[in-house]
Every structure is written in structure tokens, then in C-alpha cells.
């Protein structure tokens, strides 16, 4: 990844976004995105953990989960194509809990030094 613009361009390949490019991601770009994701999840692990813990016991501490959930939904509405069925599923409160929890769990399982290989395997097997 030579610069931030390249990351921005690759990020625009996401078909869930409002405007997306239909370029195919090269294998080395796919690897680079995974490495960035793993580094970010390692950096954000304490926060990811707090979100998971907050969701486990909403009665005791619902603030962190609610903040995260509201921001996530806000970002999805802002940047994703809300007419798409897959995005509608992400916004549906009864269905999105499982998707969000499993995504957070996947990130939290991949914070080790070998996390990059783990996440790549998870994504290829997905």
C-alpha cells in the first residue's frame, strides 16, 4: 500500500457502498487489506472486548454497546446503499445482532502474530 489513496480506492470495491468501483482486487492488495485489518483489531482489542462484554450483560452496562451500535448503523446509512437487500439485513435489528457479534469475535480471534493467516483462512472459507 503506497499511500492512503490506494487504500481508499481498494475500499471502494465494496459492493455494499453507495458508489463502488468494479475493479478486481489483486491478491497482494487482498493480503495488504487483511494485514491492516489485523493490525487495527490488535490496536482496538480492548475496545472490541468491551463491546462484547457490554452486549453480554446489557442490564449492567449497556452504554458501550449502544454507542457502538448507533455509530455503526449511522455509518452504514451514511455510506452504504440502503436499497440493497444485504444492507437492509445489516440494518434489521432482529437479524444484525448475530452478524455484528460474529464479526467482532472473528476480529478478536485474529490479534496474534499469526492472526493474519487466521483471518485469511476465515475469509477464504467464508
Amino acid at each position, binding site marked *: 500500500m503506497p499511500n492512503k489513496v490506494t487504500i481508499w480506492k481498494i475500499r471502494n470495491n465494496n459492493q455494499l457502498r453507495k458508489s463502488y468501483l468494479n475493479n478486481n482486487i489483486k491478491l497482494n492488495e487482498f493480503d495488504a487489506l487483511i494485514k491492516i485489518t489485523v493490525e487495527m483489531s490488535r490496536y482496538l482489542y480492548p475496545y472490541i472486548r468491551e463491546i462484547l462484554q457490554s452486549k453480554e450483560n446489557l442490564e449492567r452496562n449497556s452504554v458501550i454497546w449502544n454507542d457502538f451500535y448507533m455509530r455503526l448503523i449511522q455509518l452504514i446509512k451514511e455510506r452504504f446503499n440502503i436499497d440493497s437487500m444485504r444492507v437492509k439485513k445489516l440494518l434489521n435489528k432482529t437479524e444484525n*445482532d448475530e452478524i455484528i*457479534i460474529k464479526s467482532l*469475535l472473528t476480529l478478536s480471534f485474529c490479534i496474534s502474530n499469526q492472526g493474519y493467516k487466521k483471518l485469511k483462512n476465515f475469509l477464504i472459507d467464508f
Partner: protein
Amino acid sequence: MMQNKLSFNQSSVSLEIIGLPDYSNNENKDQISIISQWKLIIIDKPLIEGKLEHLEPIMDAFYIYSNLLIKNEIPIYESKLIDIKADNLHIHNVVLKSSKPTVKPLILKIGNALLSDTINCFDQLNESSIVRIKKTSISKNFTKKFRFGLKNKVKFFNRIMPPFISICSLILLSSTFIYFYNPVEDKEKKELINPK
């Protein structure tokens, strides 16, 4: 002889490994290759401890269970030593069974946060250069199976790409010849040869 002790910590979970280096392999005095005891300390939960033969199946159980959980498969793992089952999306029921018939099984309820802490402690142990543990047959089989999917997909892609490219290039090449062939001219030539 003083035993070496090493701890792997992740938030609320700590994994302690106690053992000795294998001097017959000329190992460093800080190394742990012969594990005599291990302890898994989870805050607010009972202590889990055992010998090496218990550590490997427990690690395998956690790894397999976490994979099942993520891959949308039924998250249930059952073995002679440990059962892990999901109570719901957030709580996991871990049952540790003792080899002694008189000892009751230990039941732990852990959340997603503690599950990921535990997995990360096991990852640290696996990646440690100080502690060396020999992999069990279960984990070997599992990783082989795990890698198989990836290799298979890459192989399939490699197999399908060359014929696909060759067919495409054939079509492209043959389509250019259409411009060289003029059927009207050909008819005129034939008429000149056979004037009937």
C-alpha cells in the same frame, strides 16, 4: 531442581506454564519443553489446572469450537475431557470432566470476551519461542483439514485459468481472421475459374 514458569496474559485470562528445559537437546535454561503443570486462570471463575496431556485436548477444543462458532456451524464440541456448547449468542457452557469418577465435572459459563481472551492466551503459547509443545494428532488433522480448503480453492483456480485464457485467445485470434476473408471476392474468383 527449580522449574521454569511462564505466563501468557490477555485481559481477564492468564495461562501459566510450569516446566523444565530439555537438557538432552542442549536447550537454553529458560526454555520449557517438558511441561509438568499448567494453570488457566480466568477472573471470577474457578481455577483450571492439569498436566500436558490435558492441555492439548483443551486447546484443541477451544480452537475447534471457536471455528465452528464463526463459520455459522452448530457450535458444539464434545470429547472425553471437555464439552463446549453455546447457551446463546453470548454465553458458552464449558464442562470439564475429570478422569477420576468421584470428582464432579466443573461447569463454567464464559462470555464472548472471556472466550476471545482464552483463545488469545493459547495463541500466545503456540507462538512462544520459549515454550515448545508437541502438537497432538487431533490438532494436526484439524489444521490439515483447515488448510485443505484453501489449497483446493487455489488449485481449482490455477487449473481453470490456463484453459480459459487459451480459449479466450483462440476466439480473439480467430475473430481477427474474419477481416481477411471476403466471401464476395471468393465467389468472383470461383466464377472466373468455372465460367458456367
